[in-house]
């Protein structure tokens, strides 16, 4: 059963994805795959198409061509609100904490779409900072706490694939450490995670594989255990 084995291993399969915002062509043939239980990062400079790839998966993009398959189902052409209901949770770069909602309301806003999500208690164990803050206005939390809340609210829903867009951006090292602990815990729980990161040192502590993007497509794939050997190449890609 060759087909069966492919759907078993590749949870998310993107091939020759082109994406457009209005007239501007931002994704130029992205191809990548993510297997069940893996943590995969998208590395690349600003404007390389990392965030756009995530938005394309969620359907938040004017026009897409090519193919995005999640557990065998084609997402291109699917109604936008149905995509998350397949079990995909999205944590946007800007975090998207709602200022007119309390922390509790933010946490319970995304509807539960499948069984097997984490309970609020388990979420508080993972992010103790959020405990006891329920009635606080969402945007009164610190940047790090808002990031934790943005991740936390996806964990309740039963989503199995999580798209994390730059969870460490603008945060202090001690908070980044906490986020790292949480992401590793999620991996152990069996979540599949796609992570956009500028900070590849952080990425290296978590990920199984790294896709390097440039000018709207994937130019390289580096398994995490070969990261050291490829450091020069990576520096060239990222311009650091």
């Amino acid at each position, binding site marked *: 059963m060759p087909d069966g084995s492919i759907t078993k291993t590749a949870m998310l399969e993107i091939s020759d994805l082109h994406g457009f915002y209005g007239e501007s062509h931002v994704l130029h043939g992205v191809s990548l795959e993510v297997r069940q239980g893996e943590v995969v990062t998208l590395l690349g400079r600003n404007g390389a198409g990392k965030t756009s790839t995530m938005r394309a998966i969620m359907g938040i993009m004017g026009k897409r061509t090519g193919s995005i398959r999640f557990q065998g189902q084609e997402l291109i052409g699917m109604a*936008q609100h149905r995509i998350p209901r397949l079990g995909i949770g999205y944590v946007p770069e800007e975090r998207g904490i709602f200022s007119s909602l309390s922390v509790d309301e933010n946490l319970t*806003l*995304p509807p539960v779409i499948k069984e097997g999500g984490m309970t609020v208690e388990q979420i508080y164990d993972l992010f103790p900072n959020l405990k006891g803050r329920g009635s606080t206005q969402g945007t009164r939390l610190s940047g790090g706490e808002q990031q934790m809340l943005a991740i936390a609210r996806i964990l309740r829903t039963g989503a199995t694939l999580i798209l994390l867009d730059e969870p460490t951006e603008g945060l202090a090292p001690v908070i980044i450490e906490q986020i790292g602990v949480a992401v590793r815990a999620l991996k152990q729980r069996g979540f599949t995670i796609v992570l956009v990161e500028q900070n590849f040192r952080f990425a290296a502590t978590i990920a199984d594989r790294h896709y390097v993007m440039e000018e709207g497509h994937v130019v390289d794939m580096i398994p995490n255990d070969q990261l050291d050997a490829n450091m020069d190449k990576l520096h060239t890609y990222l311009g650091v």
Partner: protein
Amino acid sequence: MFDLLGVPPQVLFGQLLLGLINGSFYALLSLGLAVIFGMLNVINFAHGALYMVGAFVAWLLLNYLGLGYWWALFLAPTVVGLVGMVLEKTMLSRLYKLDHLYGLLLTFGLALILEGAFRHQYGVSGQPYPIPDLLKGGQNLGFMFLPNYRGWVVAASLIVCFGTWFAIERTRLGAYLRAATENPVLVQAFGINVPVMVSLTYAFGVALAGLAGVLAAPIYQVSPLMGSNLIIIVFAVVVIGGMGSILGAILTGLGLGLMEGLTKVFYPEASNIVVFVVMAIVLLIKPAGLFGRER
């Protein structure tokens, strides 16, 4: 009998009641406008016309189907809500990506069409609508006489307004609404069908106007122009309260009604413009409105 500042209490309280009743309609209408503006970013100029349609649906139900006030109280807002949903799906939804101005122009045109159609059919003179039997008569409160129907209008509109406020600010459904008002794209990315929510919000907002129309039918007459007389003041109320603020719309509506009533007692000449004077002052001091947030 004692006088207050040289005014007999019957006159004072009579005008305050009148003000409270006007204020109830301001509150119901501006609440609908605020809900619609918050979610759709559309300044719904058709609101007054849909209020008129609500009153006419009540009148038509009574005269053609023999269905009385209590039926109308339920059916007219439903009809107006459905009309609203059709308008949203077929026309308004095409304008969200454009400037506010287009929504305003479209709804203004719709208001003219609706009013013109009813005027053509029924003329400009008002049609009488009877007070339901259950609410005829009144209570003597000692300091004033309170007609039962007017008391009912104030109570009903307060219940609906604060019920709506509670539903939006304190329930899960309301949390979706608030979140979608802030960031519809992200709410959609959580798996909620935002376009359907937007349609239902518009339907609900105009259904409130339809309900106000039914409540108004026995007090004012049912006339094609009843909405356009009211809507200008209601827009002033919305501006004073702050665009999109739910509580602001309710409190400002009631407050300005009362203020109008008081002006009628103490300086009647100014009663028609007091709302606009207040609007000018509020805009000078707090451009976002009393309850509005700066954007």
